């Protein structure tokens, strides 16, 4: 666990991203704030469409603009606001200081270039190495992520690798220039459990050795419980709860987080009759939120939830939640 008082390397304040579509605006990210410190792993969870990927891609301008538009906020990387820098500087940041791993390893590599070419590209671009040095670095990286016979595989094409291997290649690319921040968008979702475990191990190891800050998006709460230091729960384009990993799992405060945790089936104890689901539909994001996004599905919703959008309030050390209900503000022990 990293020192709690280190300065955050990445600090996001009040980020808002809107898509202009034919059917009107989609407010995909609404006033999202978070930070990560060097060596820390921040887990991001939330159901499909809650704005996790869009938030992360907004940080370094990876969204297609138009239709996307970052309406406001600050993205401070070591104090430098990435939303205000020149496109050239942003390109230096991408792949250099901020590494990205994407959701789908099968399509994230270019099918017509060799893996070696694709790893060497960012190395030459950012580290200014010559061809031979860059090749050596590429071999090193592939060995680092556990690809056997790394040197020989540089001249292979992506289709000659399995899904797990491709995701390792993606990780190698993301790590190529020793980034300060690694953003991993569901890096293991498409992989089977053993490969997933191997990749988690690699990342854990790298974090300890290189001291990167990591943002890890996932649907898998088990993974979050295993590797995250802190967890951020997103719903309807907002952060609804944020806490260190233990309080979040032991004492979730937001009704959505509670519901989410209940959806994990257990094998110990009596098996539930059917899988737990969260009833209802995710919210439409047609306008900036003027009420709690979870109100229609919330068992605890009351008048105020329909009239006002709750702000994040600190309820315990390092633990904040965006909910009006008194239950959200009382610790578990007190309720019991």
């Amino acid at each position, binding site marked *: 666990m990293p020192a709690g008082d280190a300065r955050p390397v990445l600090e996001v304040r009040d980020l808002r991203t809107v898509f202009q579509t034919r059917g009107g605006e989609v407010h995909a990210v609404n006033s999202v704030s978070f930070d990560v410190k060097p060596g820390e792993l921040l887990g991001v969870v939330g159901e499909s469409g809650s704005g996790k990927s869009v938030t992360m891609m907004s940080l370094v301008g990876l969204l297609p603009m138009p239709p996307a538009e970052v309406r406001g906020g600050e993205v401070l990387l070591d104090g430098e606001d990435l939303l205000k820098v020149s496109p050239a500087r942003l390109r230096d940041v991408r792949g*250099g200081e901020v590494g990205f791993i994407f959701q789908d390893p099968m399509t994230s590599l270019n099918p017509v270039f060799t893996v070696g070419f694709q790893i060497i590209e960012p190395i030459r*671009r950012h580290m200014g190495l010559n061809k031979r040095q860059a090749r050596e670095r590429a071999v090193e990286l592939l060995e680092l992520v556990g690809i056997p016979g790394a040197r020989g595989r540089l001249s292979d094409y992506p289709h000659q690798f399995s899904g797990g291997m491709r995701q390792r290649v993606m990780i190698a690319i993301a790590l190529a220039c020793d980034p300060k921040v690694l953003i991993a968008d569901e890096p293991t979702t498409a992989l089977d459990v053993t490969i997933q475990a191997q990749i988690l191990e690699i990342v854990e190891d790298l974090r300890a050795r290189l001291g990167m800050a990591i943002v890890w998006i996932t649907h898998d709460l088990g993974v979050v419980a295993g590797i995250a230091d802190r967890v951020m729960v997103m719903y309807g384009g907002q952060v609804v709860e944020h806490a260190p990993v233990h309080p979040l799992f032991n004492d979730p405060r937001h009704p959505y987080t509670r519901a989410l945790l209940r959806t994990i089936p257990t094998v110990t104890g009596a098996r539930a009759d059917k899988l737990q689901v969260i009833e209802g539909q995710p919210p439409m994001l047609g306008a900036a939120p003027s009420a709690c996004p979870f109100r229609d599905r919330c068992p605890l919703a009351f008048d105020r939830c329909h009239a006002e959008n709750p702000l994040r309030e600190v309820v315990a050390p390092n633990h904040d939640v965006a909910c009006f209900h008194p239950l959200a503000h009382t610790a578990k022990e007190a309720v019991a």
Partner: protein
Amino acid sequence: MLTFTIRRLLFAIPTLLFIALVIFLLLELAPGDPMANVPLTVPSEVKEQMRVALGLGEPMHIRFWKWIIQFFWIEPLNVFDALFGTGFAEGKLRIISWQNRAPVFIAIAERIPQTLWVVGTAYVVAILIAIPVGIYSAYRQYSIFDQAGTFVTMVGFSVPPFFSGVLVILIFAVQLRWFPSIYDTTLEVNSWEAFGMQVRQMFLPVMVLALQITSQLSRFMRASMLDNLNQDYVRTARAKGLRENTVVLVHVLRNSMIPVVTVIALGVPSIFGGAIITEQVFKVNGIGQLLITAIQANDLPMVQTLTFIFAVLIVLFNLIADVLYGMLDPRIRYD
């Protein structure tokens, strides 16, 4: 790849023989008589003798066999003789045109340069314009440039060459008098001045043809680019911090070119086929005209030979397109 190519070439032989047979039978069955233009005053016995002299007296399969021998053996020997000054083909009967009793290949060899100059240039011009236009239209989809491109493309698609040809003649040859309206086949390019003339007389037919080919190709290029611009690997390339130029012109373009190159290769036979209508409009004495006049005169050997050459080119360029595909796309393996 090599074994694949050889296998395909071997496989092409029966295909082509079959095509030759089909063309031969179709022409046999088609109504029309090479003696139709002979005056009615000529007695029918004489006409019959003329028919026999043309080789029409023999049964069908013998004539087919003779044609095959002539096409695949005697004509290549003649080419060899012409190249190396040897005499292997002496005294052997070549494929003879019924119109002027001269070997058809001599007529074809005379016409090919005209066609290659005009249609070939149009094809090259079209490729050179269509690819950048397609790339830029896709990259700036729905921009003014793209919209204008779409409009011009629609025009190029929908206006037939017999209209656009006459239109450009009216504008550029009749009104503005910038270019000649008729292509002078006898012009010999032996000086800079003559070269300038050649360029000027090629300009209008090339323009009409290039408009048509560019329209199709630039649309295809645009669609192919759009397909790839939305792919995940493009985002990866951007996330690596690559310049936009590298992202589009290296990562996206390399993928987009795969189907486009194939389509370009498949279109090459049509250059040799000539552009029948455009050649007519501008009086270009090319292959297209040769074919049309041969059909009108019931010159079966000429029609048969030309059609079969097109068939050979089509089969050949299909193979070339496949091989190119395999070379450009590492995921394709032929073995």
